[in-house]
């Protein structure tokens, strides 16, 4: 976004709020940049250990922390007004946001507010979560001082008990495998998908529900993360998948298989990038995707232009 339009958005914001429109400055959420690479874990040492659930105190603070955990696990059920798909935070932040290499909250919270040299901006922890609401959950981010974000912040703060402030911890982010030498192959990824993933995520990536509750989350299509989400990057998805999938059998896919299957998943349509520029896929690609890791937004695959979005 240009500086002028940012200033305009800032000027307009109070006006928008007064008119009851979305109370979030989406201009600041522009940028779901990739996390910096986390330091490697020294062999023989453990990842940071967050406190146990039983250590949540039985007082008003503990209530807020528990509420945050409930929201994190049951986002669609408990905060449906902010969720536009069938996802919950825990779907990508495994074990209630505790698992290393699944972008755990204990490695995230102490790293904010984060300064980004690239655009000379400062991003707060709340803004990062708002980003996940807007892109990963394809929804409307709750206001910074909302009950939902206050509870989620309390949960992340509690989980970071005794973690050092401002020091990147091993296990942060998704520890992406290096790109395979010969590149990735969507066709091979399809084979991996059919053998190892379709049993849960469905032949069409649609996931699986029990009643109205999503159990196996969708990987593409209208109910999945949108084209602006971090997971739409093949490199990011490859990291998540290699460490965490197939469920319970993480660390079994090779770098090549993880990249191939990540590319296969991310070569399917999903909801449009909410930052769509002038209704143009090409302009949006140039502004937001050209420099954002490895991704297929605005790229033609098998004769079809990707990035058209589905509703």
């Amino acid at each position: 976004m240009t500086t002028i339009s940012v200033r305009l958005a800032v000027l307009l914001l109070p006006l928008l709020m007064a008119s009851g429109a979305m109370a979030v400055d989406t201009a600041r959420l522009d940028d779901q940049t990739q996390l910096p690479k986390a330091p490697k874990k020294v062999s023989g040492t453990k990842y940071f250990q967050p406190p146990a659930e039983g250590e949540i105190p039985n007082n008003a603070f503990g209530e807020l922390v528990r509420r945050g955990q409930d929201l994190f696990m049951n986002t669609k059920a408990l905060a449906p007004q902010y969720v536009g798909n069938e996802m919950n935070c825990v779907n990508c932040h495994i074990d209630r946001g505790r698992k290393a290499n699944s972008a755990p909250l204990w490695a995230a919270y102490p790293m904010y507010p984060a300064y980004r040299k690239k655009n000379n901006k400062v991003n707060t922890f709340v803004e990062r979560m708002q980003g996940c609401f807007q892109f990963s959950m394809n929804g409307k981010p709750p206001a910074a001082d909302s009950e939902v974000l206050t509870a989620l912040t309390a949960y992340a703060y509690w989980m970071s008990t005794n973690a050092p402030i401002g020091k990147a911890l091993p296990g942060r982010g998704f520890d992406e495998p290096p790109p395979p030498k010969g590149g990735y192959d969507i066709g091979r990824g399809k084979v991996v998908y059919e053998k190892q993933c379709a049993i849960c995520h469905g032949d069409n990536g649609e996931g699986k529900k029990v009643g109205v509750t999503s159990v196996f989350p969708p990987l593409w299509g209208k109910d999945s993360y949108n084209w602006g989400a971090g997971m739409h990057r093949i490199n990011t998805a490859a990291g998540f998948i290699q460490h965490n999938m197939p469920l319970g059998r993480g660390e079994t896919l090779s770098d090549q298989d993880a990249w191939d299957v990540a590319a296969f998943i991310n070569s399917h349509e999903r909801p449009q990038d909410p930052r769509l520029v002038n209704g143009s896929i090409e302009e949006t690609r140039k502004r937001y995707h050209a420099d954002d890791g490895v991704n297929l937004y605005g790229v033609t695959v098998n004769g079809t232009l990707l990035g058209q979005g589905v509703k």
Partner: protein
Amino acid sequence: MRDFGPSRRLALLCGVLLSLPLPALAADGEAIMQKGGANPAAMPCITCHGADGKGMAGGFPRLSGLPEDYLAKQLRDFKSGSRQNPIMQPIASALTDEEVAAVAKAYAQRPKVNVQATPGGRPVEGSGAWIALRGLWDRNVPECTLCHGPAGVGVGSHFPPLAGQSAEYIEAQLKAWRGEKAVAATKKAKAIPAVAPTRRNDPNGLMQHIAVDLSDAEIKAVAEYFGSLGDSKEPFDETQHRLR
């Protein structure tokens, strides 16, 4: 496929022409439950799985309301030996493919287990409920409900319900996947040889590593948790979410 002969084919043709209901060609699932299969070795299912198909004490599982594909797969797995059991293997082997399909369909149409909205409340670390609802992620064991559905009601045709099964049966299955390690001889006791797993039929090994990673006490505790989630009298409102 059996060849039905010319007269049968004629009857089929007439049936289609006259749009009359065809006589049941396939085996009758309900009859197999009550009276057994055509081969007498396929004993009536109700003698062990209960008149209502909801299982019986002594490790006889519930079949009522289990997914059709799952039931048919188990019967095929007993036949092939990827699931071993001295009682069920001869019974399954005595069923024809047609009978397997029919009886699986009939049991799948029986009532599903009905579990309350939020059984139990917040789990306590180290309990069976904890393993069921939170998992043991430091050992890469996901919470059981992530695959077996919230409240253990099952998901789709590959992930059977655990609610509605007895603790005894669940424990036996986990041990069947795990087998037993050999125990070395001591001064007082003789060596006990290892027991190989008798159940190896889980798709992509999704279940086996879980059973292997649980201790005897944990297996017992988690089995007791699901065993306590029997049929509830209050129906669950399917428009409501089941929370994690």
